[in-house]
């Protein structure tokens, strides 16, 4: 591995509670209060969820879209470890942080969303398992992967502990770091396997809904489409996160690497679009795709977003234009998110008399969780060695 050729990650330092962090934390605090209310008053009183749509915003966004966005760690690890592109290694730690936060929030959201959270303790008890359940697979995978992600990040914490002024922490770092580094290989391998399993399983969930899912989305290839689009979304998330942190932390953006990611997205997108269109054709649904009703418009919109992203990523010069790359990444994420929202909410119809739109409480809880995630990310990269690369220029006062 080429781990020694690139710059080592360093803590950013600086003031932790800046104004943006405080505002984000306030949103997170509001969400926390609303979550307390949800547990006190129950789902019926606090959400717009109903018997027809028991899965709402929290599942469609926090779990399904959120974990796909958190596939940055998975996508970059695929590049680095499977395709052996070592030059992308500096992107891994920041991507892992977003992944760890995203998956933690997905797990938290599931706990908020399930009707009887007090029975959740049974999840790890294997004698309660129904081995034919897709949902069990998703639950176990997400729990395990969340743990794996934080363990993969443990070297960052242990490195910081090693340089701490507290002797106990220092000892912990000295002992723990070699162990963590040795087990990293296994953790990484595990961390490759788990998202492959559950990101496709998120698609399998909707296989079970049968005719309730509109034919434009209802295909046995759902698991594959979910997997492909989550990798694309992961790359998109890394591009956005990398450009934004460079912008806000006034560092030199890793344009080469990000442009490289942009190039890596292209075959994925073509593959995804091709599979989708061929699948529609084989199932005889191309007519429905151009019926221009709600469903056809939504499906066409998803594909159009991807096509525009492909156009934006067409040439090397375009990919090296960070603003352009950023917009392409946004489109990718939008398309992936739309695909997930469509599959879980829009194209899913439990009966014409059912309606669902998340209420303000649900939206505020989701928004607050995301705000908390961003605040946590900012705090973490300031305290721990996550981000690599030198500042764009020497600080003026130094």
């Amino acid at each position, binding site marked *: 591995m080429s781990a020694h050729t690139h710059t080592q990650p360093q803590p950013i330092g600086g003031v932790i509670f800046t104004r943006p962090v405080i505002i984000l934390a306030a949103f997170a605090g509001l969400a926390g209060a609303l979550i307390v209310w949800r547990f006190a008053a129950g789902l019926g009183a606090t959400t717009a969820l109903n*018997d*027809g749509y028991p899965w709402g915003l929290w599942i469609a966004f926090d779990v399904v879209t959120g974990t796909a966005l958190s596939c940055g760690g998975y996508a970059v690890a695929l590049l680095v470890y499977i395709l052996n592109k070592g030059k992308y290694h500096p992107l891994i730690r920041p991507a892992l942080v977003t992944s760890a936060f995203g998956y933690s929030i997905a797990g938290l959201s599931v706990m908020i969303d399930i009707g009887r959270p007090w029975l959740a303790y049974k999840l790890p008890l294997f004698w309660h398992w129904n081995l034919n359940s897709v949902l069990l697979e998703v639950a176990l995978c997400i729990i395990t992967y969340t743990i794996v992600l934080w363990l993969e990040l443990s070297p960052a914490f242990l490195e910081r502990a090693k340089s701490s002024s507290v002797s106990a922490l220092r000892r912990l770092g000295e002992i723990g770091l070699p162990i963590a580094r040795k087990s990293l290989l296994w953790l990484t391998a595990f961390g490759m396997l788990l998202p492959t399993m559950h990101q496709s399983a998120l698609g399998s969930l909707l296989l079970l809904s049968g005719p309730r899912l509109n034919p434009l989305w209802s295909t046995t290839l759902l698991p594959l489409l979910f997997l492909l689009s989550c990798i694309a979304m992961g790359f998109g998330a890394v591009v956005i996160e990398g450009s934004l942190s460079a912008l806000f932390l*006034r560092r030199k*953006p890793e344009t080469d690497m990000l442009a490289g990611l942009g190039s890596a997205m292209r075959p994925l997108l073509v593959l995804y679009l091709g599979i989708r269109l061929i699948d529609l054709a084989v199932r005889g649904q191309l007519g429905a795709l151009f019926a221009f009703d709600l469903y056809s418009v939504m499906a066409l919109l998803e594909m159009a977003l991807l096509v525009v992203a492909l156009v934006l990523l067409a040439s090397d010069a375009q990919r090296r234009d960070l*603003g352009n790359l950023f917009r392409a990444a946004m489109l990718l994420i939008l398309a992936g998110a739309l695909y997930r929202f469509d599959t879980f909410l829009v194209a899913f119809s439990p009966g014409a008399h059912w*309606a669902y*739109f998340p209420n*303000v409480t649900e939206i505020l809880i989701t928004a607050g969780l995301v705000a908390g995630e961003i605040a946590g990310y900012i705090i973490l990269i300031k305290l721990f060695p996550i981000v690599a690369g030198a500042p764009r220029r020497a600080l003026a006062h130094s």
Partner: protein
Amino acid sequence: MPKDNFGFLDERETIGQHLRRCGVSRRQFLELCAKLMVAAPAGLALTSKARASEVAREIAKARRPSVIWLHFQDCTGCSETLLRTSAPDLAELILDLISLDYHETLMAAAGKQAEEALQTAMKENAGKYVLVVEGAIPRKAQGIYMKLAGRPALQVLDEVASQAAAIIAIGSCASWGGIPSADPNPTDAVGVDAIIKNKPIVNIPGCPPNPYNLLGTALQFARYGTLPECDELKRPKFAYDRNIHDQCPRRPHFDAGEFARSFGDNGHRHGWCLYHLGCKGPQTHAGCSTRHFNEVVDAWPIGIGAPCFGCTEQHLAFRVPMFQTVEIHKATPPDTYAPPFTKQGNVSAVAAGVAGLIGGALIGAGLAASRKVGSADSPTAEPEPGKE
């Protein structure tokens, strides 16, 4: 508890005292009360009590009212239906619950003896008895078309009614003339309330009425000394507030458009709606469709395949031809069918607005950021030193 409007009932023996004197056991009495609760009209103040023992306590306290029953232009059908009550049966009714002191077709006496019985009953209970009138009263030529013991019916009614505490007009004839008053009404027959103006009158129309309507009214009067709440036609609401059509067991056929078109046709044999055979159910108010006669299942006109002829409505029976359909004033069901599913789940406009704001802000911020990212990256746009 309703106020005793008449203020004399406590002088008489109560039903409870009477039953004890006659050797009726508490067990038998409770059974009677339970039967009453099942059979007697819903909404009756006495039987709306929760338990048989409570009904028994109330009825035992009631004073058996003295009842004088007069027949005028009638067919005795109302008395016939009363004879066929089974719970309570006639003996229980006239011996235990009321004191029927004069009834021309039931009493054993005849001629002079009968006249004496009437005079005695009137004298003994002057101002306290209940007068039940069955049949219409002819007014033409000073009432000479009907005479009792040599006097016109008009005169007999005046005399007996003047001493009565309350009057119950049983049957359509006593209520507003009924069949004797049908066109061209040769005897100028009318109901009681067209003649007697200064006494409380309850009309129990029907041809015949369900006997429980009379029983319920009489028992309420016996226990509380009050008459039931009535509508504008003086019919007790507890028995006449329901529309036959709305409660009809054949209503689903009406809603489905399944009609009998002639007697004995396929629809008629299958028990379809009788509206096109002239059923007056849509304009008739009575309890028949839910409380069949004398505890016999389907013992009411529509139950045996005969259209309702509107006997409890002044403007229908004997006024509108038997097989003429009536107008339906309420919205017909096909306009108002309940949907098979009700709307579930609601979409809040505020939430949609909030979601739109957040989504719009995210996309806007993303575009702005992409512009910034692009310009910050271009070599010409190095930020100025010291901007920190």
